[in-house]
């Protein structure tokens, strides 16, 4: 009998060891996810918590087809993602290449500088930039004054508010691209480049046909992380503009926060969370297919 138990334990020990991890997953990830799906199919208003009717997909329908602010937030989120991520990638890649060049002096200093924006909490970044962008006391308008440019109401004018948020995001997150791509570039094997040089390839050809394909998986991961992250943009915009003026800088995450934690429509907020999650998954899949990461 004892031998049988011991044999059983020996064979199934792996499963037993998995139990704690599965338990944690179940309680901290799977259960909240399933519960949030369940919640998204109900109307649950925290000010009247006893009222919990099942409404099916109504929360999703209302958001997608009837909610004006949701559509504006979706549009703004796409614009923000579509502008910021390519700019951050372009600038980041350029700076990363410059950092790899041995003829540039002070590379260590610049590398350290690039870490600084990343080390600042996004809320603090928002506060900092609120000062920088202040129409009267801000250093940006002060600088523009030397170029005879009239003061701009960066966060108070709907024409500039979204641009202001983009500027701040680019300032904060370009260094992320720089550091990730720099790490990728310096870890590339030297042999293919040397072989190309011997074969007479120019610097440009070496970059386009050898470095770029080799670093592509790292680019894909960096861009993907940024896309997923920027869709969740909240802290900076909350401090900088609160989504205004009007709805000029309303984004999906900010709107989700408002629905859930300001208005307490928990069912609707859960539905919006799932819409955001599905959106991120779709974007990630499209992106991965476009760059054909699996084949690289």
């Amino acid at each position: 009998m004892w031998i049988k138990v011991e044999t059983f334990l020996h064979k199934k020990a792996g499963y037993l060891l998995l139990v704690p991890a599965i338990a944690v997953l179940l309680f901290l990830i799977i259960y909240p996810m399933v519960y949030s799906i369940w919640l998204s199919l109900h109307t649950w208003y925290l000010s009247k918590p006893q009222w919990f009717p099942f409404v099916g997909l109504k929360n999703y329908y209302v958001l997608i087809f009837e909610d004006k602010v949701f559509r504006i937030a979706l549009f703004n989120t796409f614009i923000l993602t579509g502008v910021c991520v390519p700019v951050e990638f372009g600038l980041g890649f350029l700076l990363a290449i410059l950092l790899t060049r041995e003829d540039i002096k002070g590379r260590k200093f610049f590398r350290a500088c690039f870490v600084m924006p990343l080390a600042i909490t996004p809320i603090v970044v928002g506060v900092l930039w609120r000062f920088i962008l202040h129409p009267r006391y801000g250093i940006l308008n002060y600088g523009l004054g030397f170029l005879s440019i009239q003061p701009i109401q960066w966060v108070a004018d709907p024409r500039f508010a979204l641009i202001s948020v983009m500027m701040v995001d680019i300032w904060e997150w370009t260094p992320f691209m720089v550091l990730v791509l720099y790490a990728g570039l310096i870890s590339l094997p030297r042999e293919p480049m040397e072989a190309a040089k011997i074969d007479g390839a120019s610097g440009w050809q070496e970059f386009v046909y050898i470095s770029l394909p080799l670093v592509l998986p790292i680019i894909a991961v960096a861009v993907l992380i940024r896309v997923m992250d920027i869709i969740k943009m909240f802290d900076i915009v909350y401090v900088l503009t609160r989504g205004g003026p009007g709805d000029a800088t309303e984004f999906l995450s900010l709107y989700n926060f408002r629905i859930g934690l300001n208005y307490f429509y928990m069912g609707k907020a859960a539905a919006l969370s799932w819409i955001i999650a599905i959106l991120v998954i779709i974007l990630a899949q499209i992106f991965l297919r476009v760059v054909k990461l699996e084949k690289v």
Partner: protein
Amino acid sequence: MLKSRLLVLVIGVLMIMATFLSTSVMAQPRIRVLFLTCPDALNLRDMVPEFEKKFGIKVDWEDTAYADIHTKEISDFVAHSGRYDVIMMDNPWLPEFAGGGYIESLEPYILAAGLDLKKDYDKKWPPGVELYPTIYLEDEIVPVLNFYGNWKGKLFCIPYMPGVQMLYYRKDIFNDPKEKAEFFAKYGYELQVPKTWAQFRDVAEFFTRPPKMYGFSWSAGKGNMAVQNYYNVAWSWGADCFAFGQGFPDEKDPIHNMPICNSPIGVKALEFFISLKPFMPPGVAAYEWAEITEDYISGKVPMMIQWSVFTPQIEDPERSVAAGKTGYAVLPGYPDAPINNVPGIIPGEGYSSLGGWGLVMNKDSRHKEAAWKFISWATGLTMTDEEFFNYLEKGFSNSGRIKAYTMPNTRGYKVGRYQTELEMYKAHLRRRPAIAEEVEYELIVGTEVQKAFVEEKTAKQALDDAAKSLYELMVRGGYIPSDQPLVWPSKYVNPDGTKVVQ
């Protein structure tokens, strides 16, 4: 052997002492309080040891930022955990907290403490509580007490840190003979503290000398700032947001719950609000409250309209060029306002939105007697005169008690703040709609007002859109049945936005 016996003896004595100490600590009531992180509350926090010594009640203090406090409170209510015994509540949340059954009526405790609580079923003041009796308590300011705590005739909240907007102006600039002469030459009347919005506009225009100085500082920031500042103008015009005005929604009459924010007088008031924009510093469309004060204390504007709670910064000589030079006045009014408008509005008088916070008791509290003792002490009801004076002086604070505004030795009295503040509380006060969805109301109307302010929409378009969104909000909240379309509530409000005289 002796050593080990001695050791056992010492351990035994220590264990008995520890048991005794822990029993006595356990016997001491312990309450947890949740406050907003703000100077007045932190000032009170420093005085908590005095309360603990006086009443033998241990207080676990917690304070949190504005962005979090509502969420924390609602989470605690919904979970029925009773984590917090005493809670600081922003006054517009009363319908949500009391209506949701989350907070305890304070009346049994007040009566048991022998405090003077009366109800007047005839006079019904301030306008808005006319469906229910007016509540009087000791020397509490009646409109503040009723707007903060009167929920369907029962008292749920005691004002702790009331707030009202006042007109702050630079006495030295207004009294400058050169400025006075120039103003007279331009406008044909004496430069004076504006009593009407027309005068206010003239004075603001006169002092607008960009980029060094602007007429005054205010805000049309998204949500809270835009809606409250706009209504400070709109109320004197006689406009209001819902047909039920300053009162409560009527469960039986959905027409009484219809939005009227887009009334012609509401639109005119918004147009006037926007017409003041050229006299405000650039960027006010995104200002937070603190930035208004910053303009004023740095000398960039000679006037501002701001909450009373900002006075300590204004009178701080190390931070403010306006310290000791500031005058306090009630908000301007609109003498041409129609006479049959909102009850309680007198044409020509100015009105401010009521702000500020009170203290309430969590219904799930397990230490209600101790919680009441803390509430009554912290709101000044049972503080000694010396404690009360020290509290006011230390933080330049205010209170819901009339006594706080009439003690001549306080700094607030000496600079003139308390007298004006009390006048505002007594007769120049309006409140935001008494609905549980007040936070959402602020954002709906505040966003539309901001859109009009930055010229994304006309005033009419913005308020029409706000009315549609408010109607949807009222349907969601169950105040209007979904089969009842949006209509103008002609039974209660005339087509121009004035009240129907019944």
